[in-house]
């Protein structure tokens, strides 16, 4: 089963649940075999991840009535970037990152997973997530900003 770790990792982060992720991955592989004709060469991992991602969205919609597409409130969260100035080098605990990643809005989370955990290029992410390149770039920037300020807040809380 090629790319199954990549498929599961994406589904697991998107659904935030192990059993749900397994269901989604199974459905995605069945779709992949069914629609194999739709594969016109190119990178098979990106092709599969795109199917996993779409399966996740339809699954979330069906089972959790999706998440109102997390219209992200700029006003509310604009202030938090102040904290991002703190120095983080050598102070990041990966265990703290997990809940922070889980808290990211879905559309931020998926680009971070594809970029940082799967190592896809902007162009590949744009293909997998059906987004313009500029949107990939800005979502990634905002997601990282949120992670950094979350980490900074954690450091502050931990030291005081």
């Amino acid at each position, binding site marked *: 089963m090629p790319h199954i770790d990549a498929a*599961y990792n994406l589904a697991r982060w998107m659904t935030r649940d192990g059993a749900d992720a397994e269901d989604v991955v*199974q459905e995605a592989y069945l779709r992949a075999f069914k629609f194999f004709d739709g594969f016109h*060469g190119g990178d098979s991992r990106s092709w599969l991840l795109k199917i996993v991602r779409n399966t996740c969205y339809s699954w979330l919609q069906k089972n959790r009535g999706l998440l109102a597409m997390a219209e992200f409130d700029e006003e509310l969260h604009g202030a938090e970037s102040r904290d991002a100035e703190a*120095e983080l080098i050598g102070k990041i605990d990966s*265990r703290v*990152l997990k809940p922070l990643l889980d808290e990211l809005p879905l559309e931020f989370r998926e680009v971070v997973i594809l970029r940082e955990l799967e190592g896809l*290029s*902007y162009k590949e992410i744009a293909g997998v997530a059906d987004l313009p*390149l500029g949107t990939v770039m800005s979502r990634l920037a905002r997601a990282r900003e949120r992670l*950094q300020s979350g980490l900074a807040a954690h450091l502050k809380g931990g030291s005081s």
Partner: protein
Amino acid sequence: MNCQSSKDLLNAYSDGELDLMNHLEIEKHLKACPACELAFENQVALRSALADESLYLRAPDGLRDRISGAIQPAEPPTTKGISIWRFAPVFATIVVMIVLIFVFLQTGSSNDDLLAGEIVSDHVRSMMANHLTDVPSSDQHTVKPWFEGKLDYSPPVVDLAAKGFPLVGGRLDYAASRPIAALVYQRHQHYINLFVFPSTGDVDGANRMAVRQGYNLIHWSRSGMTFWAVSDLNLNELQEFAQALQN
């Protein structure tokens, strides 16, 4: 470069997604600006923490079997004794493997494929980072000398305004593991990037076409130079452009 534009491009910079000129500009800015340098270091720290093995959630062992079970035909054995259907899971797995091996062989890339990928990335980046030209000029006698000292060859530069493809300018870019010349032409609202660099072989090659991510590419070799034209322009007009250049 100031702090605001550095901040805008910092993510693309640390992801290695910037064109050469912006990349160098940021590098220079970071050396001079401690605040931006800290922001960059923080990004690097965040990225290396995200690369931690514990965050990559691997598929549980049972999942593979579960999926191959779901993919195989669910026909029950109809005869007693050794039925061929008993081996159905094995056959199904073999078929799946063969199909997948085929997929992987297909996705293996030739040099031209790799280069085409790089060329399209360069083109996309030149549009994305608002960095189409280093030397904006429609005058071939301004553009050509600009490359002098920046490259170890001199790219042929012609203005094709008379044929409906005005020259917009030139840019230094990077592909095929070397700095290369990018000439920018325009057709109505569309831009064409023409990448020019010395050929590795000395044979002249006829036009070859490719489509990548919706962009059309034509490449050919002539007089020791290799040319790659890439654009979102339709293939007919791009061919017209290639012909205009070759005449």
